[in-house]
């Protein structure tokens, strides 16, 4: 019995010892070497060169404004600390060869007699503002104008593979109004600053200001089929007369990727974002739904632009956008989103469907395009307009016109050149065919067999007989 206890205590001691060794082990590491070259000593007998230093408008520390000639041993650099220069209102920016005004590197060895001139520039005053932003101990340079601060910062993404440089804009009044409204509750986002970096696909760069005195720069982009807010880094902010009501328990660390203040509350009213300009494009969203537990998979469609995404249709009129986990060292699929669909009167997945030439249907969710075989899925034909005639533009490989039997036609752009598939409809018009005369709403030229019209800079030649035949 005693032995057993002793044995157990022994094991415990071993475990403790093993744990203790961690510190010791770690502390042995990290002895990098940084060798230095040989050292040199002054030798009065060695060759020396004379270097003339022209203060060029400034003055040496002793007040003299005349050029000085000094002697420097071969293979030595000039000890600049002995020749400090001053010129009120100017910054000394080094030296240049008097001969050609090429800069003279500060640590360069002297190898010949030389005349050098001082380089100067006017001192720029650094403005101080109420707002300060600090990243990794360094204060960012801000510009300020009429209540608006701006700063430029280049953040790294994908672990540094590439960068997102952006000009951020902070409206001081809004930031402080939100700060004032804040009652001091923990973990609140006070303000969101937009930047000038915007991607056509919806990606953007922005900054969040928190009520613990931290701010964080984000790049929003699509990852594994989901919009992801990638934290590029974090810093501190202060504003004169403002003390953060909530103090972070620890100093925020510079982060890479992971949001440091996940789940913090936005409590102020978010103003509507400015419209998307003239294009008026808004992202289509399918209707969210929940797949019943006993629902059966009836069809799986592929994603045309990535192998890791797929779409799975269930028999309870829901479908899931799924992400293949095998690339992540796991197995199976992760449902990124679940949505409703119907297939009784044509397929309706809640977003625009494109009928491809091979009869498959495609639709886009979160910028990924999925292919569906309507026959395999058991889609009932739609009683609506059907495509009856298609012809490509005569002057473009990517544009085409599609005529429907409901007397509309669409100008479509082939997305395959955009790393996507399917077509994007740029214009929709009406058409009519009366007594063999085709009217397409825009100006057209009758060329006998064909009618040619131009819209959006592209020309389409419609063979009227084929269109008429297709209608019947």
């Amino acid at each position: 019995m005693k032995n057993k206890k002793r044995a157990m205590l022994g094991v415990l001691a071993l475990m403790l010892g093993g744990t203790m060794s961690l510190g010791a082990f770690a502390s042995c590491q990290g002895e990098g070497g940084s060798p230095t070259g040989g050292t040199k000593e002054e030798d009065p007998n060695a060759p020396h060169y004379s270097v003339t230093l022209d203060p060029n408008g400034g003055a040496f520390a002793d007040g003299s404004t005349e050029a000085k000639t000094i002697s420097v041993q071969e293979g030595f650099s000039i000890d600049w600390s002995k020749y400090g220069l001053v010129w009120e209102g100017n910054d000394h920016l080094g030296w240049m060869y008097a001969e050609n005004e090429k800069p003279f590197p500060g640590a360069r060895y002297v190898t010949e007699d030389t005349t050098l001139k001082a380089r100067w520039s006017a001192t720029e005053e650094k403005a101080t503002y109420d707002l300060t932003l600090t990243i990794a101990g360094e204060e960012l340079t801000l510009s300020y104008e009429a209540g608006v601060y701006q700063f430029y910062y280049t953040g790294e993404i994908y672990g540094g593979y590439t960068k997102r440089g952006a000009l951020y804009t902070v409206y001081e009044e809004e930031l402080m109004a939100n700060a004032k409204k804040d009652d001091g509750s923990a973990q609140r986002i006070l303000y969101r600053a937009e930047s000038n970096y915007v991607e056509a696909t919806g990606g953007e760069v922005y900054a969040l200001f928190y009520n613990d005195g931290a701010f964080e720069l984000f790049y929003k982009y699509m990852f594994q089929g989901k919009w992801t807010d990638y934290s590029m880094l974090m810093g501190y902010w202060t504003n004169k007369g403002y003390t953060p009501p909530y103090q972070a328990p620890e100093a925020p660390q510079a982060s890479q990727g992971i949001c440091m203040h996940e789940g913090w509350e936005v409590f102020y009213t978010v103003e509507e974002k400015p419209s998307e300009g003239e294009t008026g494009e808004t992202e289509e969203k399918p209707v969210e739904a929940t797949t019943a537990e006993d629902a059966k998979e009836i069809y799986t469609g592929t994603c045309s632009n990535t192998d890791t995404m797929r779409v799975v249709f269930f028999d309870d009129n829901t479908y899931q956008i799924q992400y293949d986990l095998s690339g992540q060292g796991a197995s199976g699929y992760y449902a990124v989103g679940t949505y409703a669909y119907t297939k009784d009167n044509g397929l309706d997945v809640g977003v625009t469907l494109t009928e491809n030439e091979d009869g498959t249907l495609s639709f886009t969710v979160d910028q990924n395009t999925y292919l569906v075989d309507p026959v395999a899925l058991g889609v009932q034909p739609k009683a609506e307009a059907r495509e009856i005639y298609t012809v490509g533009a005569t002057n473009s490989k990517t544009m085409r016109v599609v005529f429907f039997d409901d007397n509309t036609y669409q100008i479509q752009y082939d997305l395959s050149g955009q790393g996507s598939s399917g077509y994007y409809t740029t214009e929709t018009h009406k058409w009519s065919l009366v007594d063999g005369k085709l009217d397409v709403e825009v100006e057209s030229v009758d060329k006998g067999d064909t009618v040619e019209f131009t819209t959006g800079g592209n020309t389409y030649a419609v063979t009227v007989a084929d269109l008429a035949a297709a209608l019947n």
Partner: protein
Amino acid sequence: MKLFSKKLWTACSSVFTSAFAVMIAGTIVANFFYTSLNAFFACDTYKVVKGDTNENTNRYPDEWAGYNDWFEAYERELCEKTEGEGAVLLKNENNALPLAKGNNVSLFSHSSVDIVYSGTGSGSVDAASAPNLKKAFTDRGLNVNEKLWTFYNTGEGSKYKRKVPSLDTCSAKGSYEVNETPWSVYTDEVKASFRKFGDAAIFVLSRSGGEGGDLARTNAVDEGMNGDYLALSAQEKEVLAQLKKYKDDGVFGKIVVLLNSSNAVNCNFLDDEKYGIDACLWVGGPGAYGTNAIADILVGNVNPSGRLADTYLYNNLENPSLVNFGDCTYTNAAAVGLTDTNDTNETNVNYVVYQEGIYVGYKYYETRYEDVVMQTENVGSFDYASQVYRPFGYGGSYTTFAYSDFTVKETSDSFEVSVTVTNTGSKAGKHAVEIYMQKPYSEYDKEFGVEKAAVELVGFDKTQLLSAGKSEKVNVSVPKEFMKSYDANEAKTYILDQGDYYLTVGTDSHNAIDNILEAKGFDTDGNAKMAKKVATVNKVDTKIYSESLVTGEPITNHFDEADINKYDGISEQVTYLSRSDWEGTYPKSTIQLTATNQLAKDVLDEYVPGVGYEKPVYGASNGLTLAMMMGKDYDDPAWDDLLDQMTFEEQEQLVVYGFHNTRAVASIGKPSTMEENGPQGVTKSFMGAGSAGMAYPAETVMASTWSKEIMTEIGDCLGIQALKSNVNGIYGPGANIHRNAYCGRNYEYFSEDAVFSGLMMAPEIRAIQAHGVYVQMKHFALNDQETHRGGLMTWANEQAIREAYLPAFEIGVREGGAKGAMTVMNRIGAIWGGAHYGLHTQVARGEWGFDGYTITDYSSSSNFTSVINGLSAGVSLWDGYTYGETNTPKLKDLSDDNYACQVLREGVKRILYVQVNSSAMNGISATDRIVPILTWWQSALIAVDVVLGVLAAGSWVMFVLSQKKEK
């Protein structure tokens, strides 16, 4: 005692065991990403154990060490100087420029507050310190309309932002969008401010571009552009038209346009009466401090001396390469089994045909122009004046220059050209002297399909700052070798053609051809005195240039399989653009190609091991270190003894895991190295490099300086910055060709002319490498579009490849002494460019004497960057952290394959040979040893593993003991 509770130890043993298992798995995963993690944490991976020596091992010292603030000031001035000499005055009616100091100006367009400093992607630079236009203009004494500025910057106008595509590995998704502030948004208050700031309306026209995404030609989304991103949008047109109205009403004195784009925009609006534009300054991508130089030019502190590196057209679609650019797919791809369409990994269904052959940029416009003047048969309808807005080499000035005493002296291997340049105006200025050659277009050429441009740039130089009335004699040496042409069909080598050869000094490519035409007796605007017939060859000579002047290697065809007409993999034949029949051969529509089964087989690029190779020695103890090889010839037998010391695994890992670094090798004392991106400056690195260097203006602006002196200074600073950032090699400069204006990455490349690109790049390379920092010229070669760049099949004939694309790299090697190159992601014909033996071994090494090493472009996600095939072709290093999923065997599985072992050994030797003579060896002497160490994170993981292992094992023992106890 609770310590012995069974429950406690059940819990402990399961918790610790799970944690141990998780940690072990984590450790395995972490070690898989060894290279990336080291890069990320900037770890020391080795230590130097010093030998007994006092040798000064600081071979490539940072001469600015300790004086970083002085260096920064120098770089800032250099950045300004580059923009100041690179910006091109395209138009200046009635001396609208310079403006007077104290002028009140209004800056228009949303881009005026948000200019494009460079481009997007890996070459993008940090513009954090960049002064905006308002600050730059105000500092130079102009008064800027604050109300209008605020309107764009933070007011109603700020809602309109330029949009760019989103880059994902190889390809960028989405489009470039202008999204300019519409006139309807301008408030009355803003409009009322114009009069007070009416001395000049300055309109900033910006266009972006970048990696992975070309510019739209037919599908740009902004209104009014007709799908062409380089045209004006409806909003821009309206604002410009409104400015004209205000000018007519006397509100604005003049209208000035700043072209802030590295891609040439359509210039048709510049002379359009609707807009009444008085002056236009092309500024390109100005980098961090270029805005100061723009302001200096506007107020006359600097006299512009930049000259175009591209032909500027009224309409960019009128370019013979345009119909064969971008997105082309084999009509029958799927039918022959070509189905890869994933732009991130690879496509094998897309292609591009360089149907225009050698007629890239000015070589088309000036040549067809000459044929129009000479009334050559089949010249067709071609009106130079309505297509070309400003020729290649054009640039305005605030003064005027005149040439005199144009002389040419012949030596055994060169023409020594000299001309006196006199400043005949009233302001001091610099002037670039451009020397062009005309080679004869002979009957031989017509018979055998050799093409000739009417003029080709063969040399240039720039004067110093000449004050009014002062002259300078400029000498340019033109190697006679420029007289050669490549005959891919009959002689299958370079020939010296029969006929007359001319040299001329031209103010631009058009003036050059006019001078030659005058000398030939035609009536043009040229000056016959500025052109000279320098040689007449009576009979075609197929011998004189048939051997490399560098190596003596016989020169013959190596790109037949990239020429559709000589390759079985494509059903069609292509008619290349030919001077013999302009009308009949001008590319009018996209060539639709049909693939054959041969192509489907060839794209697989199966691995075929060489036979008769011996197994190299591994793991020998010869006592050598890499440092002992410093300065030794590549052929020195000691290399073999050194390589014998390495293991197969060491060699394999050195070559495969080269993402922005190369690994340390214990057996030979090789230190690790770091490499970074950098056409526009050394970029900030997550590889442990220090801070980012100066963001210089885009390469296109550098080119437009026509100053080798500036290129030397930039190279010098890049080298110093690399030393400061602990970077040993730079992924740059870029030397692909502006085949047309739509390539997304044009800002990272110099020009449409390959010889000019090479002549500008060579001094930069020399200067960078003088600091022990090696370059990787990119992208070698034929990566002249971004669309489908991962796998795109590029089809071109051999004369075009050798004359219009390769000379940039060739001059980089022969004159710049480049020690490195980076491959392309696309294919040359059916073969991935990194596995093209002809390019890398027969041409680069065999003909040019290239003795550096070549790295691939980013390789991890690709499924075509085969290591074994690349090594066989002469490429040495993979820019990745893991193998791509290629269909050839992985190198690590080929340790029993003697041929694979030998090509691997050769690749390793290439890397070592460059690095041993570089800054990588700073601090290391021959007697030192390099000892790889566990990085801190590896140590930490092992420590945690050990502790958890002990805890788990202990808990199990305790669990067993406690169970026994309970019994």
